[in-house]
């Protein structure tokens, strides 16, 4: 094991407003950590800062991932280093087939890492394999990225991209939002299939539901821009029962 991701005393401003106020968090290789917290506590801000979105001003603290100073890297380098963000609202790219998008992404990452790129045939073989594992039909290969996808399809497509890109740090930003229970199950099962000792995960969610399926190793409560409590599954159960009021420092 050993620490994969280290976040120390992170302070982040958005539009001159301090959102994260000294967040610290360590995640081990292979660990699946859930981050829960009330609206506005800074959960999605954390996801965006990890992936390198513009407009987030880090005023204090650092993020180290596999020894790299993550904050100094542009988003594409973070992606090549293994950081994957499953978006809460996956973005539409009209006219670009999903398979083209994923192949372009995968090869860009491989190029960035100095690895050999996949040709069209190699790619198709891999994509078919992964789609099969995720019990997805291949129809969506030719559909434009997220265009006309239902909420469930979008999230499944995110999981498909994740399985193709084989990240070492997966951040699932409210992946359960907008999903009915069947879609939620399918998505969770997809993520579970990808879990191994090399993949660390951060699952951002409001609800116990997703955690029932994902079985995270640790649970962290984020409130007012800080981690206020860390525990195991039982913490989520406590939360379900008593709400954030029942957790010290989270109300």
């Amino acid at each position, binding site marked *: 094991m050993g620490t994969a991701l280290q976040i120390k005393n992170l302070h982040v401003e958005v539009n001159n407003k301090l959102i994260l106020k000294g967040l610290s968090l360590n995640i081990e290789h292979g660990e699946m950590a859930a981050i829960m917290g009330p609206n506005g506590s800074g959960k999605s801000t954390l996801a965006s800062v990890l*992936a*390198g*979105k*513009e*407009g987030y001003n880090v005023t204090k603290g650092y993020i180290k991932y596999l020894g790299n100073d993550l904050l100094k890297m*542009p*988003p*594409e380098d*973070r*992606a*090549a280093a293994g950081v*994957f*963000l499953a*978006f809460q609202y*996956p*973005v*539409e*790219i*009209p*006219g*670009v087939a999903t398979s083209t*998008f*994923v192949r*372009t*992404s*995968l090869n*860009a*990452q491989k190029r*960035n890492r100095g690895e050999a790129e996949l040709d069209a045939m190699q790619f198709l073989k891999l994509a078919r394999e992964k789609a099969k594992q995720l019990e997805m039909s291949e129809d969506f290969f030719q559909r*434009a*990225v997220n265009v006309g996808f239902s909420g469930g399809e979008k999230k499944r497509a995110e999981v498909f*991209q994740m399985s193709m*890109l084989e990240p070492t740090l997966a951040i699932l930003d409210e992946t359960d939002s907008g999903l009915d229970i069947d879609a939620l199950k399918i998505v969770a099962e997809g993520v579970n299939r990808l879990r191994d000792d090399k993949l660390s995960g951060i699952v951002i969610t409001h609800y116990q539901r997703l955690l029932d399926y994902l079985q995270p190793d640790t649970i962290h409560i984020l409130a007012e821009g800080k981690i206020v409590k860390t525990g195991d599954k039982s913490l989520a159960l406590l939360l379900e029962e008593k709400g954030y009021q029942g957790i010290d420092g989270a109300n």
Partner: protein
Amino acid sequence: MAVSSDTISAVEKATKKYKYGFITDIETEFAPKGLNEDIVKFISKKNDEPSWLLEWRLKAYRQWLKMEKEEPKWANIHFPEIDFQEAYYYAAPKSDEDKPKSLDEIDPEILNTYNKLGIPIKEQEMLAGIVGSGNVAVDAVFDSVSVATTFKSKLSELGIIFCPISEAVKKHPDLIKKYLGSVIPQTDNFYSALNSAVYSDGSFVYIPEGVKCPMDLSTYFRINAAETGQFERTLIVADKGSYVSYLEGCTAPMRDENQLHAAVVELVALEDAEIKYSTVQNWYPGDENGKGGIYNFVTKRGACRGNNSKISWTQVETGSAITWKYPSVILQGDNSIGEFYSVAISNKKQQADTGTKMVHIGKNTKSTIISKGISAGYGQQTYRGLVRMQAGAENATNFSQCDSLLIGKNCGGHTVPYIDSRNPTAEVAHEATTSKISDEQLFYVQQRGLDPEEAVALIVNGFAKEVLKKLPMEFAVEAQKLLGVSLEGSVG
């Protein structure tokens, strides 16, 4: 306009040279600066033209003189007034001494672009005009000379004529007399009049009745096209029931010392014939400040003369400082079809005013317009189109879709559609959208591993896909890369 005595003496000198060594001593051949009847005569003589064609040119020239005050000003493009007496209208090919000796002498920026586009070294040498690269490159591009030879004999077996228009004037005068200027009269507009007066050469294609041309014409001429000059003239005639696909241009960046380009392209489709004309234009757009780029003022028009004929224009316009271009179709025959598919990019200080005219005359005629305009940097882009339903165009239909994509804060996209319907049964539908590449889109794509330029290229290719898929396969792959390269520096 008074002919200056300098010009007269210069022409005298030039014609003297012609007398003594025009054919053998090609390197010393030139026409002096400026334009007058003597220059027109000089060009005609240089091409060894019959007198009817000289008269035809002179008629154009005289008309052009009258039009000089009518240089079109309605387009949304801005540039300093052109002094037409300061330009050269005929220059011989460069002598070997003036040509670069190797790629080392070529601007590294151009070489860089060649590499990004994946152009083979031999072909790069050809494009850059390296001494002695000529014959070799044909091999490089087509594997062997025999391929080109096979190509030619295959075409002539089918009775297809594909040759320089200057050659066609001599070998097929009846066809030229019948069709030259029949779609775009010399006096059609300022630039077509200029072209008609001074065009140097171009291509002629004739597809006989019932023949489907078995290959896309002119990938073969990809290289030769580099030196077709500033006033190019193309005429394509598809006889009854024939088919041809013609490719013009090149994805490789073209530099040219002539700033003004005014080409004319005429297409004629007779009964049941189909012409598919594809262009990729990537002339030098000028530097960051818009200095030194090509002015591309082109007149392109096709006539669907016969019933059930079809003409389809597809263009990818990424180059030139200024583009003024409206490939159009006159839908004369009943049930004839006109199509216009366009992708145009204006980056840096580029300006493009481009679109089409669909003139419906026959019954049940049908036209489709898909225009994708992309503006970045300080680029300005205007779609200008006319759909006219004449009184006799019973049940004619048109569908137009004009989409603009803006990248950054300093560019502009404009849509100016004119609709003129004189027949109550005709249907015209127009859709237009303007969108921006959003920060969300860029971040999403970057998060998957693409750098900002790759991300923009991917998004833009998606935006332009409907048009790109209309291009012949090989051209489409190159055009995709080209869109990315053309937008470099537009983000970040």
